[in-house]
């Protein structure tokens, strides 16, 4: 792949969190059946269950602010590990301090050129 991996990682991260913040149900397109999400310690397998988890989080709206994005090739199949840190504001209490978060994704270059991923999310650090 001729594209700059850092650019690919950043583009994916921006797309992922924009989707999360504006149309959470559409996150389903970014996972596949073999994906696993670990969210605050809960392990969840497969697109349906992952999407259910993400769309049922106890806040109406949220906004992610990305602080750092790191990436590395994950192995011979062309996958990419992406490591993100930032903060998240949620309603109904947007005036409270934002929560810090970190998240890791393993991006799988499955055809047709869409990225699917399995994630582990660290516990949000309360400020």
């Amino acid at each position, binding site marked *: 792949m001729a594209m700059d991996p850092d650019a690919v990682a950043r583009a994916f991260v921006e797309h992922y969190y924009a989707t999360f913040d504006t149309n959470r149900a559409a996150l389903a397109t970014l996972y596949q059946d073999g994906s*696993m999400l*670990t969210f605050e310690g809960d392990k969840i397998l497969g697109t349906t269950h992952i999407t259910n988890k993400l769309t049922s989080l106890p806040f109406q709206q949220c906004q992610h602010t990305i602080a750092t994005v790191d990436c590395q090739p994950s192995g011979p199949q062309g996958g990419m590990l992406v490591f993100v840190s930032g903060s998240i504001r949620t309603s109904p209490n947007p005036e409270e301090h934002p929560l*810090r978060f*970190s998240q*890791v994704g*393993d991006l799988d270059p499955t055809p047709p050129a869409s990225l699917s991923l399995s994630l582990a999310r660290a516990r949000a*650090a309360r400020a």
Partner: protein
Amino acid sequence: MDGQGNAGATGGGGSDCDAVARAFVEYYYHTFDANRAALAALYGATSMLSFEGQRVAGAVEIGRKLTQLPFEQCRHAVSTVDCQPSPSFPGSILVFVSGNLQLAGEEHQLRFSQMFQLVPNEQGSFFVQNDIFRLNYG
């Protein structure tokens, strides 16, 4: 992973990775805090480290980077450890850590997150293929 033997070689599925991840994390930060030079043995020729955005490749360079960090003593306190099987290599594991880091002489603790991809080696243990470290501010 010295002396860990291990059962971890079966690696992989779901909760099987928890024991390997915990054992690795404990060993890694204990070694970091007590004998940083010994960390180089956990990496291989193909390993990659991103440390606060700086990229380093290969065990020798990684070992050098870690031993040259600008502090004499430190102490890691791990808060959370998550793991998942990784699809990249047979038996490989992704480990995700968050915690605090106290540098000697500094008043305040730093918060950090770190990610490892552990890959099985021929000796039935694991080496660190990928390592990404970030301090968490704000």
